[in-house]
């Protein structure tokens, strides 16, 4: 990447998105500390380049499936952060009407078909979504993001095999933040990891520095093209979870100094450096940062002040046949 072909507009936008994710999650962590967020949240601080580098390449009608750590993906896919924050607070106007919370965040209107509370479950669902796309002859693809821990669950094998057999338009993205909850994933993973496993299942696959938003962007563009031509591929994005597993996890199980060292590779700082090196004015970057903070502060305030959904809503959207609202007699 030389300064001359570096797309400043593009990566300023990417940087801005990364800042928005960071600011959103910081606001969410604050809200959790204040008792406003009621369930667990799994922040992706340190992983924003992976989210943005992948999801900024998706069209609105491309499909995304994410994990319990899905705020960044969801925001980058185009969901309204206000609706997301409301969802985290279980308020009216949340993407899922307050029924889902952070772990089930979804915005079907922008093709985001859901985070998932079950590790690895999104893989099979993603493959099925791609199957539908193929059956309907549509020109779009599915991106399925999962963690490094998910590659030890059966769906990784079943889903990737399936995608290849049926030649489905899925881009699998293993967002490898080194940990599965409190365990270093290396200790529970045999062999060389997701790329080797994907290749053994007949998929092309590669590892990328997931904290380098430009590298992620380029690889994603390349793989999206290939997926549309040749079926499923897998990208392995190596990143690091700078915080705990949940916002309340102090992550004391990490070797001393590990996280400190990793903060030196904060993808936001790295992107900012690239932009300044490419001649983008510091003031402009500071503005983006201030905008992101302001946006999320405002969102936080509206979400906080919003009401909870009425209790009666608990009975809606269960099912049509045998609907609990009409069935109980």
């Amino acid at each position, binding site marked *: 990447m030389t300064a001359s072909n570096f797309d400043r507009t593009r990566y300023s936008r990417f940087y801005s998105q990364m800042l928005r994710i960071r600011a959103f999650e910081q606001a969410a962590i604050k809200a959790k500390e204040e008792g406003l967020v009621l369930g667990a949240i799994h922040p992706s601080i340190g992983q924003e380049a992976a989210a943005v580098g992948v999801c900024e390449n998706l069209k609105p009608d491309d499909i995304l499936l994410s994990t319990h750590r899905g705020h960044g993906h969801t925001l980058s896919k185009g969901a309204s952060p206000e609706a997301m924050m409301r969802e985290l607070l279980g308020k009216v106007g949340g993407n*899922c009407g*307050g029924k889902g919370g952070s772990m*089930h965040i979804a915005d*079907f209107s922008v093709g985001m078909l859901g985070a998932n509370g079950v590790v690895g479950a999104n893989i*099979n669902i993603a*493959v*099925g979504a791609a199957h539908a796309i193929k*059956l309907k002859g549509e020109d779009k693809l599915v991106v399925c993001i999962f963690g490094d821990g998910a590659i030890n669950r059966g769906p990784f094998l*079943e889903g990737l095999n399936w995608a290849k057999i049926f030649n489905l338009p899925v881009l699998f993205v293993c967002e490898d933040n080194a940990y599965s909850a409190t365990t270093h994933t290396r200790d529970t993973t045999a062999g060389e990891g997701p790329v080797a496993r994907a290749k053994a299942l007949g998929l092309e696959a590669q590892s990328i520095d997931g904290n380098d938003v430009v590298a992620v962007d380029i690889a994603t563009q390349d793989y999206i093209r290939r997926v549309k031509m040749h079926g499923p591929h897998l990208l392995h994005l190596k990143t690091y979870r700078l915080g705990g597993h949940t916002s309340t996890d102090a992550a004391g199980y990490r070797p001393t100094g590990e996280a400190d060292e990793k903060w030196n590779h904060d993808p936001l700082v790295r992107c900012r450096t690239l932009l300044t090196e490419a001649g983008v004015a510091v003031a402009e970057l500071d503005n983006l940062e201030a905008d992101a903070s302001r946006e999320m502060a405002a969102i936080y305030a509206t979400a906080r002040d919003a009401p909870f959904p009425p209790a009666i809503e608990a009975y809606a959207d269960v*099912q049509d046949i045998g609907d609990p609202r009409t069935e109980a007699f």
Partner: protein
Amino acid sequence: MKQMTYLEAGREGLAEMMREDPTVWALGEDLGRGGVFGQYHGLQQEFGKDRIADTPISESCILGSAVGAAMMGTRPVVEMRFADFALCAVDELVNQAAKARYMFGGQARVPMVVREPSGLWRSSAAQHSQSLEAWYAHIPGLVVVMPATPADNKSLLKQAIRCDDPVVYLEHKDLWALQGPVDDDAPDLPLGKARIARAGSQITLLSWSAMFHQAMQAAELLAAQGVSAEVIDLRSLWPWDKATVCESVGRTGHLLIVHEAVRVGGFGAEIAATVSEKLFGQLKSAPARLAAPRIPISYAPTMENEVRISAEQIAAAALKQIGKINA
């Protein structure tokens, strides 16, 4: 009216829906070869490999991918081969299919049908014989259907495919060869409606799936002894037709529920408890249940038969219940 088997009726129902709606497709192992019992015979020839999809032995992906495909606007019909193998895909059914619409606040619809050939089939032993309908009835979000006749298998399968909810559709393996009339001009049945298959006045025999036929035979045996039994085929477990059942039991005063599944925690318990709640005081006896003992299913016929309910047993239980004979 034309006659066909339960198996053929299901196949015809699926084929008609596939002709009617291009978003309907089926997936499972060996479907191209007709499926393990022949339920899909000839369909790949008509509809091609994309719509009758031969899958790997990957139950969790078969069911899980159907969830994604359903959320994306197609109507997958999932073939699980044996209901027992669906236990390899319970997360996909219960945590995903059943909850997606709800947990995403109504953004998703999951119109899929999970066909699970169920129940006893001579000497199939513990891992190929189970009846687990009670599990599914307990899970919010799921519709549970168990057809007992060829006509119902056609009509209810079509309705299950049309339904926007995930439907667990349990066909009984021992009914595949059952012949019966199928009226192509009859309007399709609504899901959730029971059928009073035989009118009677002294006791209500309530059953579904294969056991329904035993109940019908039992009613004959009872008639021969001067007892008038009403026989109901419940057809759907969720929703279940409380109105029809309660109306009948309100008249007869006695309810005997017969199912093939294990009695402990079986769906008969739900019906018995509900009927007691609704009709306490009007009942002449406690709602009774005739069902399998809480044992796995054996291979050898002598032992396997211990979990089989016969028409004779039903008739005897009914007589005892109405006080015609003593314990």
